């Protein structure tokens, strides 16, 4: 199959309501319960009102996959999503540092990494976001993907950019730092 990257989740940060219904639906799908910290999409609010739904950017070069010393990460050739082989993952965290957006995070309870797998091709988060008419997370398919894809950034970088955009330069001084 040469359909690599035929799906991608477009994200319009300035529209995110912060309702976190994406976290709810994601964790229900993957974990069977409402579990915000185990969600593959996590909404960061690093200044009130500026909500950043953070999930895998599916970089063209997949540095996380290349960086994994255990070969626990692979790319799904149908969707372009990262697939985590939990049995191989040692939770070393190398993929987190390899990711320019610092997207992957450890499962809050088990010893493995969690990364968005696009729910096998039918993402729950985008459906939830559309249903509520927030239009923040939007599923892109095939030819749109290459043009719409954006490079991975960290929640802090995205919070600064989005705060500047929707609240003005002054608000960027309020973004939480640590």
């Amino acid at each position, binding site marked *: 199959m040469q359909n690599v990257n035929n799906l991608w989740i477009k994200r319009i940060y300035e529209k995110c*309501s912060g309702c*976190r219904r994406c976290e709810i639906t994601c964790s229900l799908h993957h974990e069977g*319960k409402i579990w915000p910290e185990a969600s593959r999409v996590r909404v*960061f609010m690093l200044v009130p009102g500026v909500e950043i739904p953070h999930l895998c950017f599916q970089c063209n070069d997949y540095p996380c996959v290349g960086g994994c010393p255990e070969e626990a990460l692979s790319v799904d050739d149908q969707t372009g999503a990262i697939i985590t082989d939990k049995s191989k993952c040692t939770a070393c965290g190398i993929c*987190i540092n390899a990711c320019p957006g610092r*997207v992957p*995070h*450890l499962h809050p309870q088990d010893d493995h990494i969690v990364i968005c797998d696009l729910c096998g091709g039918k993402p729950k988060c985008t459906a939830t976001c559309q249903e509520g008419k*927030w239009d923040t997370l939007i599923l892109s398919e095939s030819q749109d993907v290459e043009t719409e894809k954006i490079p991975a950034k960290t929640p802090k970088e995205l919070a600064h950019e989005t705060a500047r955009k929707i609240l003005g330069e002054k608000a960027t001084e309020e973004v939480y730092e640590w």
Partner: protein
Amino acid sequence: MVNGYAGKFLEIDLANKKIEEITFSDKIIQDYMGGRGLGVKILWDRLGNKWETIDPLGPENILLMLTGPFTGYFLGARTCVTGKSPQGNGIIGSTVGGEFGVELKCAGYDGIIFTGKAEKPSYVFICDDNIEIKDASHIWGKTSRESMRYLIKDSINDIKKIHPNYGEFKEPSVLYVGPAGENKSRVAAVAAKYTHAAGYGGYGGVMGSKNLKAVVVKGFGPLPDVIDQDKMLELSQEFSDNCFKIEFFRRWGTGSGGYTFGADSSSEPVRNWQEEWHNEESYKGEEFDKLWVKKYWGDFGCPVTCLKLAVLRDGKYDGAICDNPDYELEAFLGTNLGIFSPEQNIYLSYIIEELGFCGIQGGAILGFTGELFQRGIISKEDLGGIDLEWGNVDAFAELARKIAFREGIGDVLAEGIYRAALKLEEMKEKEVLKYAIHLKGMAIGAHGLRSGKDLVTPTSIGYSVSVQAGDHTSSAALPIDGRGSELRSIMSDSGVYCNFTTFTLAFAQIASFYQAVTGWELTKERWFGEKALRILQLQRTVSLLGGPDAEWRSKQDDTLPSRFWEPLPSGPLKGESIDRNTFEKLKSEYYTAVGWNEEGVPTSEILQKLDLKDVESKLKKEGLL
């Protein structure tokens, strides 16, 4: 294992730095649910027999932050903050939106019980079972936003130590106080995010009295298991679909009310309630809309997202950000101060939040002082040089700052309208109390009664017989098992969910959600005829006991602020007034319906029926029954 609950509570003795986990029996959890109901039960059991001696701002008061069985599962998460109120000296179940309650449940706790007073300024850090009372000296005195930046920074660094290698940390949730709370103002809020506040009750001042600046919580676990998740999700979907259809709230929130409640229903406070009508076009929703970020804003699980982010990008108040402001703030920090400019209203909302006030109670003290200035009872000199003309937003902002830091006359005003009025009568030897538009020590919500056309509080006894006095989110109405009943507010405050998501729902639908979560059936009869009624009697009782500095004698205090007995002075509904006979008749009917005698005291019969014999004994002992 009780479904829908974490199953344990944290008890934190701030004086002795003792932290322990406690539990309540299934019966207590079934009867009192959580939030407001459970808070009332905990407070009664621990303080009831000496209620009248407990100083709400003293170390013996207990401060509670409680979730409920709906928190996290239902649409729109909230947290209930309660304790003995420094405003009304009873108990107010005050709720605040946001993820705090969800994080707390994910950390493994249904609530937190704070006792004692910390030796020095402190905050509490909770990350699952890592709990620490930490020094807050470096943030004491700082405004809300600056405090939050320190708290998040310090807390994420602490979480990193617990979870090295985890990846990026989502910010924890925080409930905090600003300078007003630190300085024990009775009109200070317990706040979250921007302008999210548990305002009614004055619990910001209680946190300050305990030297407690903030509580930070991060939970890494899942929400507790529920009994029937499929059913719960099915109901959640159905209820969400209802909310998606209510376009008005999604589009405007309550942010168009600043004009419509004045122009259409003549029930908006204008210049300290001297009028309730205005038709200032400048204050229309469309004018606020120009200053809103074009997106919806909401909290965990919310399908309504009624919040709007307002931001001023240029001019004198460049950089001011707040949410909406919602209708209450448009009124209390706008029309009630003679301010009819959205920009100025947004700026003042921002200032009030930075200082940590409740927008309603804090706005009411500003309006009250404005009228005393108008009448020459308080002079510019008294105010330390502030020229407090109506509409002078800079003057009101400066006065708010003085109140937050208790500078000069701010020290008197920080006590809230009722207590400030008593003090000023002494100081000025003039009649002042009649300008304090309060009920039982609390300013009332921005919903006037005289026109009879208010959408939120249409009935004249709404505040008078409510056990949360002026709280417009808990006003009373007949029939007691109806949609407008205070017993239904007890449901939302005890289940701890946002009532903006349940407008279209019948009680049975809400109860079916409760059953899907907990496995417990809850009939309308059991709730309205027993459980909620029991909580109501307890709240009524502590309100009657009051003390040590105020007490409310039911019959005479189940009334209205004197101004509300006068006819409306202006507008198309000029002359409309509340008929005393009708009011008294309704009041009597209400007393009978909830089991109170003609003096407004719960009868022995109802107390025995509800298994509240200790309440009966206490009321008898104090000569109230």
